[in-house]
């Protein structure tokens, strides 16, 4: 279990570095998708089955797809060269964020020297007995009873996000020959009929 966590965690950090340092947005997005899949595996290790799948469904399947649609719509091929990080910045970031945890883990497992002392251990094996309900049902017990207000507020937040996104993006005028009924009904006769000459 610890080995799996270490490997998946290392992969996650490497993918996150690729997201940050890549100069092609599509590559960065695919790395972000892969890092969310790695994070989903980590959450499965923490017995968060519903959340792990919700991460794939919601984050990868909706949010990242939305990002990809944006990148495709705006046709962004690559970031400009002047805005890319210098090589030394890239190397430093990767070495620091991947190297330091590896070194600390190495100290812990090979030399027995832990930087933070003895900390409690996760994933106690005695917890894995037959549970009365599934993880989804247990989250539902909390979400709809104790955190019902938070849940409803989150729904309102989502509704607000929909309204905001649509109102920001919609264009004012429809192109083409479609009728605008409200304009037709607001027509004034004075704008349509002009008196040219009185017949006496």
């Amino acid at each position: 279990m610890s080995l799996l966590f270490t490997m998946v965690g290392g992969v996650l950090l490497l993918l996150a570095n690729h997201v940050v340092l890549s100069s092609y947005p599509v590559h960065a997005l695919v790395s972000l998708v892969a890092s969310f899949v790695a994070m989903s595996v980590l959450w499965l290790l923490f017995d968060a089955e519903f959340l792990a799948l919700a991460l794939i469904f919601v984050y990868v399947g909706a949010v990242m797809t939305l990002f990809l649609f944006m990148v495709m719509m705006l046709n962004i091929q690559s970031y400009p060269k002047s805005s890319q990080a210098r090589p030394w910045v890239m190397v430093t970031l990767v070495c620091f964020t991947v190297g330091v945890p590896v070194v600390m883990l190495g100290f812990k497992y090979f030399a027995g020297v832990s930087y933070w002392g003895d900390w409690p251990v996760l994933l106690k094996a005695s917890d894995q007995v037959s549970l009365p309900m599934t993880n989804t049902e247990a989250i539902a017990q909390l979400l709809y009873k104790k955190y019902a207000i938070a849940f409803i507020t989150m729904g309102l937040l989502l509704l607000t996000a929909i309204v905001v996104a649509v109102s920001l993006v919609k264009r004012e005028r429809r192109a083409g020959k479609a009728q605008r009924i409200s304009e037709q009904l607001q027509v004034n006769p004075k704008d349509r009929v002009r008196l040219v000459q009185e017949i006496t």
Partner: protein
Amino acid sequence: MAMMEVFGLSLFLGVVAGVGAVLNTRNVIGFLMCIELLFAASALNFVAFSNYYDHLDGQVMALLTLSSAACESAVALAVLIVLYRGYSSIDTRVLQQIKG
């Protein structure tokens, strides 16, 4: 697997995301991706705590974090579309033109 290793993972993920946000301030899409990474790191922290204390509140909070991250990215992408329509660029420096 000790608790601190999970914190360390969440910390270093957050560091990557934070440094990435600084490096990617010029382009909006890269910046938004770093914000997503930051949300994911905090959700990992919540889930780890939930597992340690055998309490599902952390998982509920992680779920709510996920949905607020989705809201935030939807609105941010809508703003990106408006920016692109106005300036045909995803460079954030064009926003300096609307100063004053």
